[in-house]
């Protein structure tokens, strides 16, 4: 059973969708493997910005898996984004991109086809999934793992 850590980013109107993704990338690439992963995460900035503007990570997390703890990232919008107490953007105490990492974006079902195609054109480790599902489109086999408890998320709810 792997450890799960939650982070919460304040998005629109506190910051725009592109700025939100930029901050998420900064969090994820602060570790030892960040420099090598950063170009791929920056390459998908436009697609990720569209997903964030669509409020995909409002109810379903951006899920980051690696050879270590799993990171679940949510975004807050509207009045919730202006409440500082809703944010938790603190540095992680581990490298979230250690080893075989992957970032899964929660996407509205209507946008899944073009987002999947656009991501595949510029990234191999960033994938899309239906935000009502936990299974990434491109790598369904990877999702078959033990169930875990989002302790931080549970305590925050």
């Amino acid at each position, binding site marked *: 059973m792997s450890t799960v850590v939650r982070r919460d980013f304040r998005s629109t109107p506190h910051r725009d969708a592109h700025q939100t993704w930029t901050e998420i990338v900064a969090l994820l690439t602060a570790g030892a493997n960040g420099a090598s992963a950063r170009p791929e995460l920056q390459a998908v900035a436009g697609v990720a910005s569209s997903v964030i*503007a669509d409020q995909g990570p409002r109810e379903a997390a951006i899920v980051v898996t690696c050879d270590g703890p799993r990171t679940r990232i949510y975004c807050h919008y509207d009045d919730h984004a202006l409440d500082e107490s809703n944010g938790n953007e603190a540095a992680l105490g581990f490298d979230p991109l250690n080893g075989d990492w992957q970032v899964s974006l929660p996407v509205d079902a209507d946008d899944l086809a073009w987002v999947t195609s656009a991501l595949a054109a510029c990234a191999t480790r960033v994938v899309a999934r239906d935000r009502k599902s936990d299974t990434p489109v491109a790598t369904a086999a990877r999702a078959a793992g033990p169930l875990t408890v989002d302790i931080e998320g549970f305590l925050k709810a």
Partner: protein
Amino acid sequence: MSAVAVYSRSHSVTYVADNILKSLKDIIRLSGLDPTKLSQDWESIQRAIRAWLESEHLQKVVLEIYNPQTDALIRRWDVDVVYQWSGSGEGSFYTDTDQLRYHIQKAGVAPSQAKYCVLLDNKPGRPDVPGWGSGSYRSTSGLVRQSLGSTIEHGGLGAQAAYWRSA
């Protein structure tokens, strides 16, 4: 305990800019086209919209859907900006996604070979934004404009959508 959010003009700019881009993405996808090109230009378009909303030079955001063989306009979407800052520090967030979706579907799917581009219409004297220069519109001859009314609004900064279709 209840909390009251206080809004700034920057919040309104951020909200409206993000939702204009989201609306463009929805229009493109529901018109049967691929939003990938928009996503590739997302940061540049967002930066320009924000800059020119803040300076109040932006008058409208235009999405042209055209025939790449003839360069003729097939359909055009206008997002007209309305500046009526309330300055009260209060306001609700409003984006009428359903109305927009209804009219996009009513306008119908564009031909699969169609291309699109985004243009930003400014008042004279706009500040420069890197990557943006002067341009021109394709002719709307033979098309009629249909207004949808207010689709995005916060703090008095709003956007009203309209589209041009065959007469």
